[in-house]
Structure formats: structure tokens, C-alpha cells
């Protein structure tokens, strides 16, 4: 659920979703619910993805070969689908992080200059 339905916020969320997901599974494989909770918690509730948004994104990243999903069955638990980043996904993540930081730095430079 979006904290705001303004068009810019939706676009920012859509554009950063892939970056967020890749970042979260870079450290270790995670399942979809865990990914959604981490996004919500670490963003302080400002970013949240519904089931109907999150999983299509996960499947899209899987089709591109950036993520690899695998069903894992642990003792005493139902099987869950865990996603881990692939080698290609790591390269994409690194590229997107560079781009994102440059973008944010550029925005900051412009806004700080205008509002100084």
C-alpha cells in the first residue's frame, strides 16, 4: 500500500523496486514475504509492496536471470520459494546502485543550490 498515491511517488517506487529487491537478496536468499517485510521495515513504512505487485516483480527479475528462485523444504515446515541474486543480478545491482547514487547526488546538488 502506498503511503502516497501521488504519481511521482509511484514512479519512484516502481523505478527503485528492482534495486530494493536485488539489494535485499544480495546478502542471502530470502522468500517473498521476508522481502516485503524488510522493505517495509527498513523504509520505515514508506515503501510497501502488495502481493499483487511484489511477486510479478520477482518473476520478472527471475525471467531476466537476475534472480534465481528455488523451492526449499525445511524440516517441519512447508516448502517455501527462496530467491537469491545471480551473478548477472550482482552486476546489475552494482550498476543500478552507481546510477542511483549519481542520480541522488545530482538531485541533491540541484535542490540544495536552488534552496540555499
Amino acid at each position, binding site marked *: 500500500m502506498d503511503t502516497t498515491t501521488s504519481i511521482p511517488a509511484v514512479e519512484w517506487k516502481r523505478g527503485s523496486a528492482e534495486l530494493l529487491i536485488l539489494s535485499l537478496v544480495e546478502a542471502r536468499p530470502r522468500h517473498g*514475504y521476508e522481502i516485503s517485510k524488510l522493505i517495509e521495515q527498513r523504509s520505515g513504512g514508506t515503501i510497501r509492496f502488495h502481493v499483487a505487485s511484489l511477486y510479478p516483480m520477482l518473476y520478472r527479475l527471475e*525471467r531476466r536471470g537476475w534472480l534465481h528462485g528455488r523451492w526449499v523444504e525445511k524440516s517441519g515446515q*512447508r516448502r517455501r520459494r527462496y530467491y537469491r541474486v545471480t551473478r548477472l543480478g550482482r552486476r546489475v545491482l552494482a550498476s543500478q546502485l552507481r546510477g542511483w547514487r549519481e542520480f541522488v547526488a545530482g538531485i541533491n546538488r540541484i535542490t540544495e543550490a536552488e534552496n540555499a
Partner: protein
Amino acid sequence: MPDWKPEILRRLAPLKLSTPREAEIAEELAQHLDDRYQELLAAGEAEDAAYRTSLGELKDEDFLARNLKRVERNFYREPVAVGKGSGNLFSGIFQDVRYALRMLRKSPGFAAVAILTLALGIGANTAIFSVVNAVLLRALPYRMPSQIVMVFWSNPAWGQDRIPLCVADFDDWKALNHAFVEPTVFGKNLYDYTSSQEPQQIAGAGVSPGFFSTLGVEPTLGRGFLPEEEKPGGRLAVIVSQNFWVHNLHGDAQAIGRNITLDGQSYVVVGVMPGSFRFPSESVELWEPLRLKPPTRRGPYFLRGLARLRPGVSPQQARADMAAVSERIREETHAQDTGGAPNVMPL
């Protein structure tokens, strides 16, 4: 715990995904909704409120399908109208195969194990079926094979149940027989076949009169043995296998009546057996008459009995009938009873 799958499947239905893919997505999304539902209950929400909030994760009726449409388009299954020849009968199969291949490519380890397991399973099944087919399923190429039996001596004290017969045994068997149509015997042999090419050693069998008629087979080319050819001193005649005829006589129909040299002696080829006939073993390529002379003693023991049961006679009854032969032998030879007995075995 609510069952989320019906709601999820209903929203996935417009995508017409393959059944396995649809089930996989439904299972994963249902787990997420279960976790969300449990989280809300733990936070103190009432069950119905938690249910509505969790279900709200699926958004509008067509939201999930819209978001999945482009991602899952490779898994679309074209509609097949029941009763109509749409021409797309295999399109769903191709899509499922492509999906399977894609999943296997992503899991090379699993793919390797799966392929190896399939290969081992297919290989084992093929091997087992080959044996079962040869031993149990494939019909023997003889007339009423269930009525044909092999006859041996057996002696449990010696640990043997296929002791050959001698000529004298065969004569007694024929004289005292009540259970069989016509007792016959055969003995295996190796022949040195000499031709224009390199000499070969060919497996063959000497057979007594009535051998082929007992089995209910006859040559596909030429004829069987004539009575004069089956008597001691008669013309040396031979019937060959189809394999021998093809490889050594060039499959020539004019080979009938031609002479070949076996063990330095000239034999006239009188017949060619069907390709399916390989008795008493796969390696046997030649058959000649035994031309047995009246025995002067008991032995040597080199013959194997072959006979067709009379109608209504069982192998057990035939075994009892053969016991009379055994008793005659003991009387004649004044031999002590060593525990031997006739052994009648289905073919």
C-alpha cells in the same frame, strides 16, 4: 487458516497459464497471505479484519493478472475448445516443454540428477523387459509349446537335474512310453565348416526322427529329412538356419541340394529353417540326423529328450510314466538305487 488458493486461482484464470505454473504461483502467494494473516492476528486484529486486510493484498479483481500478464506470457496456453479441431492440440504441450527446459536450465545440478535417474530407470526397465519379453511374453515359435517337454534324468544326491540320456535310455523310453506322442532326442555338437572362406566352427545338433514334427516346425525352404537319411549309413544331409543360409550360402534359393563340407565330410543341404527357429539354443545353426546305432551298452550319456505330451497328460503324469523306464533300467543294470529319477520339464 483461510484457504487463499481459490481466490488466487480465480484471479489467475484469465491468464490461462499452464496448470503446473498456475499451481506454483498460487502456492507461493497463498503462503505470503498466510504469513500476513498470522502477522495481523498476532498484532491483535480480529480474524475477519485480518482476513479482509490479507485478501486486500491481491488488490483489484484483475490487478494480479495485469501485473503478471507480460511476465508470464511465455506460459500462456492457447484455449482449446472441447470438440473442435483447433489445430493447436500440441501448443500446450510445447509450452509446458519449454517451461520445463527453462526450469532445468536454471537448475543444472537438479537437471543432471534428473536426467541420470531417468537414464538409469529407462536402461533398467529396458533390460528387465528384454528378459521378460524373451522368457515370458514372446511366444515360442512352436506349435502348442505348452505341450512340449524336455526329458532328463535327475539326481538330487548329485545336485543335478538335467543329466543326459543314453541311446539305450532312449530305446527303453520309446518302448515303454505311454505319455508322449513320439519321444525324440537331440545332441549338440560343434562342426568344422570348410568353405572358400576361412574355416569356421559352427554349433549344430544331431536330431532323431520326429524332432521337427514334435516342435511343429518345418523348413521354409527345401524339406525335412527323409527316412533313409535318418538311418545309419544314410546320405549325409543337413538342414541349416536362416542365418547360416544368408551369411554362408548368400541367401541363394539354389543352395538347396548344394553340398557343404562339415568335419571334412560332404553334406547335402536339404532345408533352411525359419529365422525364428533357434533350437536348442541361439547358437545352433545346423541340424543333421543322429543316425543312432543299436546300443551295446548303457552310455555314453549325451542325449537330451524332447517330446510332445499326449492330449490330457500333464508333466507330472509324464514323469510317473518315465519312472517305469527308470525301473526297467535298474532291473537291467542291477544298479543300486542312487535316488535318481526322470525329470520332465516344460519347454
